C-alpha cells in the first residue's frame, strides 16, 4: 500500500517534533497508545493562559508513517487555535487531509485521542492551580 503524498511529506519532514516542559502549568501532555500496532504517541500543547490560545504544540510518535503524519498534522492545526476550537478537531478531518486508507484510520483516532488527552491534562492543571490560588487567598 502506498502512502499519500501528504503522509510522505509529514513523515519525511515531521513538524514540531520535540517536547515541552511537562511540569509547567500551562502545558498539557497527552500520551496515548494502540495495542494493535504498539504505537505510542505523545502530544503536548502550550497554552497562553490569558486568552486560551495554543501557542505551541509538540509531538513525538513511535509508530508507522500514518501515525507520525497524523500527529505532525495535528500539531500544525493546534497552533493558533483556542482550546475549545482544538477540541472540535475530528479524526475524520485528519483522514481527509492525509487521504488515509481505511486500515490506517486508527492512526487518526490516536491523534484525536492525544489532542483530547493533552487538553484534559491542561484543564486539570488549571483547575488545581485555581484551587491552590483560592486556598492561598
Amino acid at each position, binding site marked *: 500500500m502506498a502512502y499519500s503524498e501528504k503522509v510522505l511529506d509529514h513523515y519525511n519532514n515531521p513538524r514540531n517534533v520535540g517536547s515541552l516542559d511537562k511540569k509547567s502549568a500551562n502545558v498539557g501532555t497527552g500520551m496515548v*497508545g494502540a495495542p*494493535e500496532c504498539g504505537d505510542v504517541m505523545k502530544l503536548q500543547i502550550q497554552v497562553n493562559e490569558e486568552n486560551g490560545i495554543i501557542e505551541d504544540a509538540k509531538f513525538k510518535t513511535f509508530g508507522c508513517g500514518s501515525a507520525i503524519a497524523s500527529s505532525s498534522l495535528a500539531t500544525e492545526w493546534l497552533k493558533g487555535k483556542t482550546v475549545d476550537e482544538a477540541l472540535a478537531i475530528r479524526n475524520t478531518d485528519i483522514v481527509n487531509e492525509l487521504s488515509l486508507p481505511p486500515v490506517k484510520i486508527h492512526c487518526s483516532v490516536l491523534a484525536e485521542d492525544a489532542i483530547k488527552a493533552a487538553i484534559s491534562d491542561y484543564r486539570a492543571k488549571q483547575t488545581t492551580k485555581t484551587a491552590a490560588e483560592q486556598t492561598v487567598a
Partner: protein
Amino acid sequence: MTADYFAFFGLQPALALDLKDLEKRFLDLSRRYHPDLNARKPAAEREAALEASAILNDAYRTLREPIARAMYLLKREGFDIGEQTTKDVPPELLEEVFELNMALEELKDGDTDALPQIAAARERFLASRNEVDGEIGAKFAEWDAQHSRDTLSAIRGLLNRRKYISNLIEKTNVPD
C-alpha cells in the same frame, strides 16, 4: 474433524487444571492409541486410532499451557480471540513504553548509555507479566467455580494485556 479437548481427556471444561492428572490421562490415552498396540486390529480401527493420537497430541499441547488453554476455552465459549481491537493498553505502562522507545532509538543511533535503562525496563515488564499471570490464575479459579461470562471477558482482557507486555519484553531483548 473437531473434537472437544476437555471431553477427549474425560474432563469437564476447566481453566485451572491439575497438570499431573492431565499428564497421566495423556499417557494412558497415548498407550491406548499407540500404533504398535493397534497393529493387529482391522484397518478402520487402526486409522481411527491414528487420528485419535493426532488429536491427543494437539489437545495435550493446548491444555497443558495455561495461556493456550484459556484461549481455547474462550474460543469454545464463542469469544473472538483474533486481533486485539479494544484498548487494552495498560495506561500505567504508556509512559514506560514511550521512554523505552526513546532509549531504543538512542541505542540504534549507537548510544550504548541507553542499555541499563532498557535492562531496567525489561525487569519491570517481566514483573508486570508476573503480576498479570497472578491475576489470570485467580480468574481461572473464579471461572471454574462460577462459569460466569463476565469472568471470561475479564480473562480475555488480561490475555490481551499479557500479549502486549510480552511484545515489550521481546523488544527489550537487545544483545549486550
